[in-house]
């Protein structure tokens, strides 16, 4: 594993974070730093808790151990009002866009501004149109969320996320399920917004090439641990087999292609002997533990 130290000028710091869901440890004593004004990517296969990490940073989930500081403030020790004040400066782009379905595009972008400020409607209009112009959707202001494509919905959500001029934005899988044109537009948009608005960006993604193209620093997570970190170039030349398999998309390697099972021939030649009741509440013990062993 590469072992590089990021600079000390971090906007977000995650220290010795441990988080579990039931018996499964999602994060096991991990520490991450997100530098101001940079794009930092969290990468890893599905199910490694990347979205969970964003929810922990945003104060929506509480860790079992460790701390998260944003702009010098411990997110999980803030009072509700203080947390909400901090969140006004933290934009988040959800994978689905999370647009309010009973409002049109304009009202969705105006929503946080109307809720948190007392600006006159004429000023809100100008502000919203500027944000929509930045994402290229000023002409779509009257459309409803169900009339938007996936890529457009994410761009509207991005305009909403920057409506209150936040200091940082967290992107949850921004490239998933996008066609090449939408993906290219989003990649450019994230990069240009980061530069022009001086934002700090955290991108959670498993789209290797798109993310590596714009990220300044990358953390690769697996099984609750940081298995690789560094600049895109350093990650590319990482000595870790796991990181190489992930970055190159190899079907087999440290992460096995096959789900754990007994020997193939043995399985084919011998039928299941144990009787399983039709409405059994419990799966056989071998199945119950299989998921945990997946990457062992």
């Amino acid at each position, binding site marked *: 594993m590469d072992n590089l130290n990021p600079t000390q000028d971090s906007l977000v710091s995650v220290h010795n974070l441990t988080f579990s869901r039931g018996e499964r440890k999602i994060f096991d004593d991990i520490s991450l730093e997100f530098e101001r004004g940079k794009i930092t990517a969290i990468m890893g296969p599905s199910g490694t808790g990347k979205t969970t990490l964003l929810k922990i940073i945003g104060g929506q989930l509480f860790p079992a151990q460790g701390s998260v500081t944003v702009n010098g403030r411990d997110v999980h020790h803030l009072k509700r009002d203080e947390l909400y004040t901090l969140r006004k400066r933290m934009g*988040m782009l*959800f994978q689905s866009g999370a647009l309010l*379905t009973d409002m049109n595009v304009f009202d969705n972008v105006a*929503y946080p501004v109307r809720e948190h400020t007392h600006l006159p409607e004429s000023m809100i209009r100008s502000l919203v149109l500027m944000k929509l112009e930045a994402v290229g959707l000023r002409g779509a202001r009257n459309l409803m969320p169900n009339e938007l494509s996936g890529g457009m919905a994410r761009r509207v959500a991005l305009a909403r996320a920057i409506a209150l001029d936040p200091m940082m934005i967290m992107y949850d899988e921004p490239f998933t399920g996008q066609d090449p044109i939408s993906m290219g537009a989003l990649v450019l948009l994230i990069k240009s917004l980061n530069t022009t608005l001086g934002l700090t960006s955290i991108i959670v993604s498993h789209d290797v090439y798109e993310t590596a193209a714009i990220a300044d620093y990358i953390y690769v997570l697996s099984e609750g641990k940081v298995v690789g970190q560094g600049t895109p170039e350093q990650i590319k030349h990482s000595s870790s087999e796991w990181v190489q398999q992930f970055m190159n998309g190899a079907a087999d390697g440290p992460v096995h292609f096959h789900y754990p099972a007994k020997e193939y021939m043995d399985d084919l030649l011998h039928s299941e002997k144990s009787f399983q009741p039709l409405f059994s509440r419990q799966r056989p013990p071998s199945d119950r533990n299989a998921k945990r062993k997946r990457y062992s």
Partner: protein
Amino acid sequence: MEFFHYLGATTRASFTKLGRSSFFLISILAGISSVCVRPRLLLKQLHSVGVLSFLIITISGLFVGMVLGLQGFYLLSRFGAEETLGVMVATSLVRELGPVVAALLFAGRAGSALTAEIGLMKATEQLSGMEMMAIDPIKRIISPRFLAGFLSMPLLAALFSAVGIIGGQVVGTGLLGVDDGAYWSQMQANLDFRGDIINGVIKSIVFGFVTSWIALFEGYDAIPTAEGVSRATTRTVVNSAFSILGLDFILTALMFGDN
């Protein structure tokens, strides 16, 4: 042994859910003050929860009243007491059928819609999105819906009873020949404002409170998947029906136990 394990786990899960729903109710009630500052949120929900239930309540009330008129006439005419049909129809509706049937219909029409809406908002991350925008979804989404349900229910129950009484009159006096004056005057003379009407209103207020609480909690607590929302919607209708009928028995015993 496994049975006891299952029993213990189920009991524990039920009490945990009861605790969660109680905390949820406290947050809803705490959020009501912010609804008063933004009356437009409430007006929108009063339309969707109350006004849109108008049709089903009116039509159902009419038919229930007509059936009461028919059955009441057949029964009362055996004793030559068909003149008291108005009292029988009105008492049945105002005391019992109005609040109870209107609440059951409300749970099926508006309660299930509330659960599905909140559950889908959760599944599509709209509630999380609001939280990340520093906007409390309880105050902006849940409390206005709760207040709208709570306020709509007594009005809908009153509408149900009023239309039912007219339905009983149409059948009783229009088709079966009961004297129109007797229908109304007997009703006016024998129906007690405090004992019958106010008690019926109290019932509908309680049912509105419980049904809205169940519907919103089930939506908010739903597993954010298609199956999870579907199950939550079913639970809303089933639990609301049990609660309405169980509470009706308790309230009836408390209100009319002395008679």
